[in-house]
């Protein structure tokens, strides 16, 4: 158990990467969103108009910007940290559990940041000028419960998926991640082939919680995969 806690601390040891980089990225995205809004403003769009709100709330920039960093963070949490964790004396089991725990902490942290900023954005009437950065559709458009769920599960998915790809790399070298990617593509293609005839019906019946379930499945599969891949992995 103590090695699990130590593994969490090992991940959190990269304080800047874990705590500050998400803030930098969020800040950058905010700046870019404001710049884009300014461009629209200058081109004649009026802040506060229905069209303006619709347009800026559809901007998912925040998601893309964070997502690539989070996948990197997930990859590096295993690729370079695993060999060092073994050196320090972590077991593969405690490393896997500790890494999942750390991913949950990081997810909660990012969810909390975005929740606070979203509340602030709405409380200041969108930064007093009608700019939409965090109060966007993809983050629940103002529904805090929904935002926290989306961000938490989204970040956790990105981290664990990054982790399982890195585990495949640790275990099999460059071929590992390619094999996983190929496997995922094949499964998705097969699902598509089976489901396409019923696509219209499925789209009709689509519920948001389906995504949550999909995320949970991805998280569970990735974590199990990480464990299975790391258990026999030999660091050389």
């Amino acid at each position, binding site marked *: 158990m103590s090695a699990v806690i130590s593994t969490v601390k*090992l991940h959190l*040891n990269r304080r800047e990467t874990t705590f500050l980089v998400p803030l930098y990225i969020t800040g950058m995205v905010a700046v870019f969103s404001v710049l884009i809004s300014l461009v629209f403003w200058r081109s004649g769009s009026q802040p506060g108009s229905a069209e303006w709100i619709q347009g800026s709330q559809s901007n998912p920039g925040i998601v893309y910007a964070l997502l690539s960093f989070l996948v990197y963070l997930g990859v590096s949490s295993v690729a370079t940290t695993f060999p*060092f964790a073994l050196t320090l004396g972590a077991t593969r089991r405690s490393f896997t559990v500790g890494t999942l725990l750390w991913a949950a902490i990081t997810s909660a942290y990012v969810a909390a940041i975005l929740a606070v900023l979203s509340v602030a954005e709405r409380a200041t009437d969108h930064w007093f000028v009608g700019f939409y950065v965090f109060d966007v559709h993809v983050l629940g458009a103002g529904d805090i419960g929904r935002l926290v769920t989306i961000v938490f599960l989204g970040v956790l998915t990105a981290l664990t998926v990054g982790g399982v790809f890195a585990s495949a790399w640790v275990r099999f070298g460059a071929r590992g991640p390619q094999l996983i990617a190929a496997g995922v593509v094949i499964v998705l293609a097969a699902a598509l082939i089976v489901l396409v005839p019923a696509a219209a019906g499925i789209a009709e019946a689509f519920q948001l919680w389906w995504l949550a379930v999909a995320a949970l499945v991805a998280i569970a599969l990735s974590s199990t995969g990480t464990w299975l891949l790391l258990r026999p992995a030999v660091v050389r």
Partner: protein
Amino acid sequence: MTNAIDMQAVNRRFGDAIALDAVDVTVPEGSICGLLGRNGAGKATMMSIIAGQDRPSSGRVEVLGQEPFENESVLAMLSFVRDNQRYPDDYRLHHVLRIAPDFAPHWSDEVAAELVDGFRVPARTPIKKFSRGQLSSVAIVLGLASRAPVTLLDEPYLGLDVTARALFHDMLLRDYAAHPRTIVLSTHLVQESEALFDRVVILDGGKVRVSSEADDVRDLAFTLSGAADVVQGLIARSTVLSTHTVAGLMSATVWGAVDDEARTRARDLGARIAPASLHELVAAIGEHDPAPADPAHDEQKGVRA
């Protein structure tokens, strides 16, 4: 005396390659054991298995009486930093010093501070940009400051300058005397380190060729040198490890202890004879072509027991 490390019939294969071949090695508690042999002899694989970072293909390994693989209580008592150790992205020295004590219950900040200071390990440079010697310094800091009951030092000399080597020896011996533990030090720079050892294990081609007390190594082999025909005649019925011939002169390293008879015979014929030093023995074993039926193997059994 109990054994800190006990390996019985350990084999390790990577595909077709045999990294360790029927390795039987015990290291008693409270000793400094030199793990010697050429590059690729199996030293790193053996350490990896002792450290629970790898598992044998067959055979049994016990460290402090338990199997090390996935064994949290053993791993807490063990330190192993490999010579090509990788560190997490954007790590600097302070990251290492901050987290290592969490995994090492006997960690000493004083030892770490003294070594960091003496080695002049840069604080601001990312570890990724460290020179070979600086990487070795960090590994030594981790190895010695952990005060782990079983400490494995993997090629600690790589890139170290003379001053750093002396500092390493000084700290190793002082701290070892104050806090006895079991240390296994792998190196192919034998002369650098032979005085540190009270036990030695020599590997070649994945096989244990010697496992003995350091003081007994002198009785394992001897070197003969002189006129080629004389040396040739003297070694005719011995197990020869290696020979060097140049312009009618020959030197040979031969299994066995120097006895008075051999000494007299050699002197009468004008040849020089002396017990092989540890580094001569390691070099000779490394040159020796491991023949399938190796008579040397029987001869060293007495020492291995």
